[in-house]
């Protein structure tokens, strides 16, 4: 191993560089990881929330189109939309903007 001049030269250089490398701070980087994971989860929740809302709205429109006499049926979906817009999936929940800063 040691009689290989190329390997030896590279290893010496690597050792010298290791001594110059910046100190490691895993805890600080871990906080960034956690923040990024939270952001990703938030985006997924937002997407789920909007998908459900869009689905309910499409269903309500479908009902209005295919059975205009059954408008009373819309009360349920509209109530569901109202509930979702104040629920965990909403993108405008109280405190959301402060959690992003």
């Amino acid at each position, binding site marked *: 191993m040691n009689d290989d*001049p190329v390997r030896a030269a590279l290893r010496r250089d*690597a050792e010298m*560089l290791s001594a110059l*490398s*910046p100190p*490691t701070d895993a805890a600080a*980087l871990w906080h960034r990881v956690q923040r990024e994971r939270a952001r990703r989860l938030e985006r997924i929740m937002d997407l789920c929330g909007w998908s459900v809302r869009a689905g309910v709205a499409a269903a309500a429109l479908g009902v209005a189109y295919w059975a205009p006499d059954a408008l009373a049926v819309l009360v349920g979906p509209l109530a569901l939309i109202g509930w979702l817009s104040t629920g965990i999936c909403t993108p405008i929940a109280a405190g959301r903007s402060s959690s992003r800063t």
Partner: protein
Amino acid sequence: MNGSGFGRFSDFYSRHSRNLWRYLVRIGADPTLAEDLGQEAFLRWSLSQAVSWDDERSRAYLFTIGTRLLTDWWRRQSRHSAWEATYEADPAAEIADSPLFRSRAWAALTRRQQQLLWLAYVEEFSHAEIAGICGIAPASVRVLLSRSRALIAGKLTEDNKDEVHE
């Protein structure tokens, strides 16, 4: 859960952050950029499926991320991925102060050749892993590495002869 997640992250980070930093420095990043890109590489690694992979595979993936981040940075700097260009930038004084750098043998290599030699002889990745990290065909690694090795060996021999004559 968080404790074990941090344990895995901290262990992986402490074992490989220095290696990734020196690799990025030796293929052309300045020390500050190498530090930033290294942190970004660990961040992306920790958010990927690679966290659950075995250590060797994870390490290769980490170096792949680091390499791509540096290539992207070069592209953003409108330098285009100058893998085939020779090293022209002046490195920081403390980084340049090594026998390898003073010999100028390293500077005679292209970035691709530097990358291959470093990954093979310092990090000891397999040819398949090197191919993945560099984004080249596995069959090409052996040939390119052999040429790179012959080139730097010749340069180092020339330098040694010059030193003896002086």
